């Protein structure tokens, strides 16, 4: 069965510091991996995706994610955090026998000024 795990409910980082939001996955086939961001009382916004090719994927707002097949991970990163990056981040995976996206439980990113 497909699954995705976001091991941290919350990540705290100071503005200007690098940030990482972790995601690991389990699928039976080649994964399609996604990151979404949700601001308060809003729907989810697409940030970036990995389908195939270069393991480092660049997305919106300066975010990037690294696909690591051996560790089955797809961590979201940004070199320098902004207060405006504070939001809820969701990792999602598609792969295996089903075409549905499976979402993680979300990680709340809090960037302190």
């Amino acid at each position, binding site marked *: 069965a497909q699954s995705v795990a976001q091991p941290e*409910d919350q990540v705290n980082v100071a503005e200007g510091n690098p940030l990482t939001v972790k995601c690991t996955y389990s699928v039976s086939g080649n994964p399609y991996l996604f990151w*979404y961001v949700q601001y308060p009382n809003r*729907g*989810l916004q*697409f940030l970036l*995706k990995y389908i195939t090719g270069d393991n480092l994927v660049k997305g919106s707002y300066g975010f990037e994610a690294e696909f690591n097949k051996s560790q089955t991970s797809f961590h979201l990163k940004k070199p320098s955090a902004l207060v405006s990056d504070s939001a809820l981040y969701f990792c999602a995976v*598609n792969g295996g026998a089903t*075409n*549905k996206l499976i*979402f993680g439980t979300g990680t709340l990113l809090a960037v302190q000024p």
Partner: protein
Amino acid sequence: DVKVTQSSRYLVKRTGEKVFLECVQDMDHENMFWYRQDPGLGLRLIYFSYDVKMKEKGDIPEGYSVSREKKERFSLILESASTNQTSMYLCASSLFPGGTQYFGPGTRLLVL
């Protein structure tokens, strides 16, 4: 840009009422989805649709039904609302089933 709109941002209903949540997308996407979002549980798929008049159950379909009479519109129906259906409801659409999903702003439903 893909635009997904939902009929209401906030809704308050009474237990036992029939509730309709409407979702419209403007990108001619074949696939549409309804999720509910609850703290600590992430997004859970209620129903999805691959084509007009076609629907499939997601992970938590109990107490819900859907309707897709036109390609751009996907409705979620709570046949008899209950307090445990108080939640944030999110609609999404995608070009193909496992691809990038584009979300509406959400409807926060409170059932009293």
